[in-house]
């Protein structure tokens, strides 16, 4: 009981002490587990408590537009550039990248493991009409998938019932794919951390078209005066520091490194 009380008190005291800011991030970034490594170090180095809102890129951008978060960290270049052009953020700053991979049943009916590139893999799936789960939630991963379909000169709107847009986050979509033995596009980090793999396996990766650039966008204080401009800068400086570089490049799951730091100093 005393232990509980001490814990509750310490909870409130730390809440009062640290400066906080709200950062909207994508589910894929959070599911990778990298945030669990970075946030405690950020708190230690800068005294800044970063509160994460884990949402899809679409919702992250909406939260930023409304001024409900102080900054966003997302991965959808076209949407980010539109966001900056509309004046919601003064600029976007590239931090790091990871890559997308094609996941599918081990039996691999569409034979995408031997595909030449990402577009070829998708064409093979469409030809065999093997079940394919799409995020369908306007997230960065979903937008990436749509751009890959258009690179393969295919239109998901014309597809039959084998194409399932589930409108859910990365983890929930992977659960669906696992249940249906379906193909799915996922970021490598979410896949490696995903616990319910079932009969699914990583079938195709490595095409440069599958690279996934993360960028940091502070919300413009001129537009939303209540955002914490100082905290935004502190976090940006930390994210682009050599210390962040070492932590991001050094983050591994099952011996595989996931992120490549590429912020320019």
């Amino acid at each position, binding site marked *: 009981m005393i*232990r*509980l009380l001490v814990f509750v008190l310490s909870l409130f005291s730390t809440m009062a002490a640290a400066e906080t800011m709200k950062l909207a991030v994508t589910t894929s970034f959070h599911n990778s587990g990298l945030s669990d490594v970075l946030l405690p170090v950020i708190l230690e180095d800068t005294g800044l*408590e970063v509160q994460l809102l884990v949402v899809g890129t679409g919702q992250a951008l909406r939260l930023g537009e*409304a001024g409900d978060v102080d900054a966003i960290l997302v991965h959808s270049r076209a949407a980010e550039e539109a966001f900056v052009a509309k004046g919601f953020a003064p600029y976007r700053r590239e931090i790091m990248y990871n890559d997308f991979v094609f996941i599918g049943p081990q039996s691999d009916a569409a034979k995408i493991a031997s595909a030449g590139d990402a577009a070829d893999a998708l064409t093979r799936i469409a030809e065999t009409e093997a079940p394919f789960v799409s995020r369908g939630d306007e997230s960065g991963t979903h937008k990436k998938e749509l751009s890959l379909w258009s690179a393969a000169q295919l239109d998901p709107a014309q597809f039959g019932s084998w194409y399932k847009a589930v409108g859910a986050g990365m983890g929930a979509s*992977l659960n669906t794919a*696992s249940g249906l033995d379906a193909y799915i596009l996922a970021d490598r980090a979410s896949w490696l951390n995903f616990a319910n793999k079932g009969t699914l396996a990583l079938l195709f990766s490595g095409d440069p078209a599958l690279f996934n650039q993360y960028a940091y966008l502070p919300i413009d204080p001129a537009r939303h005066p*209540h955002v914490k401009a100082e905290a935004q800068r502190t976090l940006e400086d930390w994210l682009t520091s050599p210390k962040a570089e070492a932590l991001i490049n050094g983050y591994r799951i099952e011996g595989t490194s996931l992120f490549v730091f590429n912020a320019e100093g």
Partner: protein
Amino acid sequence: MNEIWAGMLAAFRLIVTLDADLVEITLRSLQVSLSALVIACVIALPLGTWLAIRRFRFRRATIATLNALMGLPPVVVGLIVYLLLSRSGPFGVLGLLFTPTAMIIAQVIIITPLIASLTHQAMRELWAEYHDLLISLNTTSRQRIATLIWDGRRALLTGALAGFGRAIGEVGAIMIVGGNIDHATRVLTTAIALETGKGDFALALGLGFVLIALALLVNFAIHTLSRTEQEGTW
């Protein structure tokens, strides 16, 4: 079946080791849902009783609306509360979005119609019994409501517990207005949704068992404190 066993084991392990994160989110769940319950009761009990004793023109329509609102979809409530509290919304200046207060507001909206409706049902019967007595004593409206609430407290307790049940198990609204921020607005239900998303079914299920145990505990505690179902008083 294996997943369910693993879930029970995970729940057991979390409780026995008094996992710090578990204690934190459990306390927050209780804090949010009990606050919402108290506020909702303060509104709903007098309102439901008043509806039972008062005759007015749109009474039937009001009661029908109240009953319909019992089925208010939490996710819609969440979205509306989000839009109201958003920095771009009418109450944005308060800065309440993504705080436990926002979650309490959403839950009050969800459970108030439920408690008011159940109160009204119980009070209507009681009022039929007390009608002549209270009228002949020349009581004021306020006195009648107070008397009915006190004498009908057992039935109202059931209504309140139903409201608490809906609040503590609710995820759609608080996910939207709370944002499921670790160490700030994460509660049991949103943590379950998060772990399910990660495919960690054992931990999700473990948290689920903790949630069920918590609901049982609160119900037992309230029954014990209010001394219902005891020898001689039931």
